[in-house]
C-alpha cells in the first residue's frame, strides 16, 4: 500500500511538471508579450519598454526563461498580481485557498453521500415510472445552466424566503467588532473539521471488531460525544457566533453545488447497483437468509461503490468547474472567483497562479480518490 502511494506521488509530480511545461508554452503562445500587459501605458517610449522587457528577463533565450519560470515556482514565487498590486500571487492564493477547499470538500462529500444513497435505493426498488423520473430529473440537474440555477437558488432561498444570505462570505455588520480576522476563524474551522474526521475514522476502525449488536450504539455514541466536545470548545472560545455566521454563508453555495453534482453519482450508482445485483455472491447472501437491508447495503452497495469511486475522478473535474462557477455566482471569495475576475481583467500572473493551484489541487484530489479506492478494494491492496 505504501509502495502504491509512493508510486502515485511520483506519477503526480511528473504529470505536474508536464503540466507546468504546457502552461508555460501557453503563456508564450499568447499574442503580444508580457511586458505589454505589465504596463499598459501608451506614453512609454520604445526604449523604456525595452528596458522593462530586459528587467523581466524577456530578452533571454526561451529555455533559460523556462528554467527561471520553474525555479521561481519552486521558490514559491508566482509573480505579483496586477489587480491586487502589489500583493504577490502566492499571498492571495494562501488567503483564498482554504475557502475554496471548504466549499469543495463539503459539497463533494455531501453530494457523493446523497447521490450514492438515493442511487442505491432506486436500484433496489425498480419501476418504470420511477426510473423515468429519476433519469430525466437527474439529467436535468446535471445539465442545468449553473449560473442560472445558482441565481434561481439565490432568488428562492435568499431573496424570497430570506433563509440564507445572498452571497459573499461574511456579514460585515457582525464582524466589525470581531477580535480576530475572518481568515483566522475560517482556518480554525477547517482544522476542526480535519481533526474531527481523523478522530472519528480512528474510532470507527478501532471499534470494528465489536459485535454488531452493540456496534451501532458505540459508533453513534462516539459521534455524539465528539460533536458535543467540538461545540463546547467553540462556544467557550467566544468565536462561536462568527463561525456560525460563516457556516450560514456556506450553506447555500454548498446546497447549490450539491444539487448539481449529485445527479451524476446517483445515476452511476444506480447502474452500478443493478449490475452488482446480478452477481453470484448476492444470490448467496439471499440464500444465507440475511435481512434485505444487510444484502442491499453490506453486500451489494459496498461492491457497487467501487466503479462509482473510480468515476469520482471524472466528476472531480466537474465538481471543480462547478465550484468555480458557483463561487462566481455567489461571490464566494475563493480561488474560483479570483480565477474568473483575473480572466476578465487579464491579470495574467493571478490567472496562471489560480490555474496552477487548480492543477495541484486536482492532482492531489485524484491521488486521494486512488488511495480511497485501494482502501475499498482488497484486490488492489493485496493483489
Amino acid at each position, binding site marked *: 500500500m505504501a509502495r502504491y502511494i509512493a508510486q502515485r506521488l511520483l*506519477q503526480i509530480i511528473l*504529470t505536474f511538471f*508536464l*503540466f507546468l511545461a504546457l502552461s508555460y508554452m*501557453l*503563456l508564450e*503562445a*499568447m*499574442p503580444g508579450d508580457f511586458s505589454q500587459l505589465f504596463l499598459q501605458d501608451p506614453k512609454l517610449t520604445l526604449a523604456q519598454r525595452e528596458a522593462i522587457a530586459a528587467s523581466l528577463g524577456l530578452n533571454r533565450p526561451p529555455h533559460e526563461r523556462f528554467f527561471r519560470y520553474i525555479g521561481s515556482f519552486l521558490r514559491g514565487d508566482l509573480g505579483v498580481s496586477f489587480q491586487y498590486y502589489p500583493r504577490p500571487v502566492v499571498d492571495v492564493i494562501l488567503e483564498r485557498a482554504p475557502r475554496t477547499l471548504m466549499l469543495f470538500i463539503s459539497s463533494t462529500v455531501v453530494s457523493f453521500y446523497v447521490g450514492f444513497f438515493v442511487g442505491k435505493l432506486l436500484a433496489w426498488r425498480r419501476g418504470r415510472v420511477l426510473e*423515468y423520473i429519476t*433519469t*430525466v430529473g437527474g*439529467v*436535468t440537474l*446535471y*445539465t*442545468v*445552466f*449553473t*449560473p*442560472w440555477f445558482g*441565481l434561481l437558488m*439565490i*432568488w428562492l432561498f435568499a*431573496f424570497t424566503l430570506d433563509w440564507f444570505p445572498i452571497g459573499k462570505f461574511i456579514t460585515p455588520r457582525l464582524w466589525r467588532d470581531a477580535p480576530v480576522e475572518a481568515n483566522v476563524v475560517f482556518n480554525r474551522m477547517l482544522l476542526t473539521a480535519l481533526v474531527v474526521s481523523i478522530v472519528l475514522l480512528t474510532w470507527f476502525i478501532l471499534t470494528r471488531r465489536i459485535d454488531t449488536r452493540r456496534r451501532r450504539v458505540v459508533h453513534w455514541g462516539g459521534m455524539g460525544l465528539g460533536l458535543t466536545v467540538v461545540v463546547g470548545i467553540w462556544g467557550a472560545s467566544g468565536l462561536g457566533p462568527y463561525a456560525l455566521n460563516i457556516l450560514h454563508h456556506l450553506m447555500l453555495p454548498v446546497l447549490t453545488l450539491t444539487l448539481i453534482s449529485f445527479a451524476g453519482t446517483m445515476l452511476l450508482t444506480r*447502474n452500478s447497483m*443493478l*449490475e452488482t445485483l446480478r452477481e453470484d455472491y448476492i444470490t448467496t447472501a439471499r440464500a444465507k437468509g440475511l435481512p434485505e437491508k444487510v444484502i442491499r447495503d453490506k453486500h451489494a452497495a459496498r461492491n457497487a461503490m467501487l466503479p462509482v469511486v473510480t468515476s469520482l*475522478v*471524472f466528476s*472531480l*473535474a*466537474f465538481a*471543480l*468547474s462547478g465550484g*468555480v*462557477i458557483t463561487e*462566481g455566482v455567489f461571490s464566494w471569495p475563493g480561488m474560483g472567483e479570483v*480565477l*474568473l475576475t*483575473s*480572466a*476578465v481583467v*487579464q491579470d*495574467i500572473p493571478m*490567472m*496562471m497562479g489560480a*490555474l496552477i493551484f*487548480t*492543477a495541484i489541487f*486536482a*492532482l492531489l*484530489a*485524484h491521488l486521494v480518490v486512488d488511495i480511497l479506492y485501494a482502501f475499498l478494494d482488497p484486490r488492489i491492496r493485496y493483489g
Partner: protein
Amino acid sequence: MATEERHNPFATAQPAGDGTTLDQQERERLRAQPLWRVRLKLLAGTLWNNWKLFTENKIGLIGLAIILFYAGLALAHPLLMGRVWDPLIYDPVIGFDPLAAPHPAPPSAQHWLGTDPLGRDVLSQLMFSTASEFILGMVAALITVTIGTSIGALAAYFGGWIDTFFMRLADLVITLPAIVLLIVLGGLFTLDLPLLALVIGILSGFGATTVIIKSQALTIKVRTYVEAARVAGGSHWHIILRHIIPNLLPLTFLYMMFTVTDAIFAEAILSYFGLLNIRMSWGLMIHTTQSAGYLLNFQTWWLIVPPGLSITLLCAAFYLVGRALDEVVNPRLRKR
C-alpha cells in the same frame, strides 16, 4: 480385446431440423447477389434492430424530439428573416424596434418572447443562436471522436510506450477541469466560435474518450477474427481500418452525443462570464441580461428563461440520446 459393434438405436433418430433442400436454395440465392447488396441489407437490418432497441426506452425518444425541435428552429430562422421579418427590426445582433419601447419589452404579438434591454427581438436571438450551438457541438464532437478513435485504436493496437504516453496525457486532461482551462484560454487569447470548437474538440479528444475507446479497442483486438486477419497476412493498417475502427463506431457515435452536451454547456458558461468573442449565443443573451442588471428580476422572465431553459433542454436532450444509445451499444444495460 476386439471392439464390439453394437447397434446404436439412438443414432437413427431424426434431428429436428428441416430438410437440406431449403438450405441449398437459400445459399444459391445469396451467392447470386452482389456483395454490396448483401452488405446493405445486413446494415439495414442492424440499423432497424438498433432503432427498435433505441425506441424501447422512451427517454431516448424525448431527447430526439427535443433535438429535432431545436433543429427546426435553427432552420426556420433564415426563412423567417428573409420573408416574414423585417431585418432592421428583427436582426438578432443589430436589430432595434423603436415602437416597442421601453426595452426590455414583454412578449407581444410582434415579439413573441419580448425584447432584450437593447431592443432586439428575443425569439430571433434564440433561433439564430440555435444554429451556432448546433454547429459548435457538431464540429467539436467530430474533432473529439476523430482524435479519440484514432488515438484509442493506435494505443490499443501498438501498446508499449505509445499506449503509456497517451494514457498519461489522458490522465492529465481528465484531472484538470476543462472549464478552468477554457477560462484561462479565454483570458489569454480572444476566443471565437470556430477556435472554441477546436479547443473543446482537442481537449475532449485526448481525455476520457480516448481511455474508453482504447479499452473497447482492446477487446476487439483479441477477438478471433482479428487474429484470423493477421494470420491471413493483413497489414497493421488494414486491421486497424477495416476491423477495429468499424467496430468502434457505435461507441464513437455515443460519445459524440456527450461531447455536444459539454460543448454547448462550456460555450454558455464562457459567454456568460464574457470571455468569448461571439456575435450571439444563449450564454451571451444571459450575459447581456446580467450586464443590464435584469438578472435577478423575475418580472422580466423572458430575458433569462428562454436562453437558460434552452441550454438545459438541448444539453439534456443530447445526453438522454447518448444514454439511450448506451443501451443499444452496451447490451448488459438492457432490461431482460
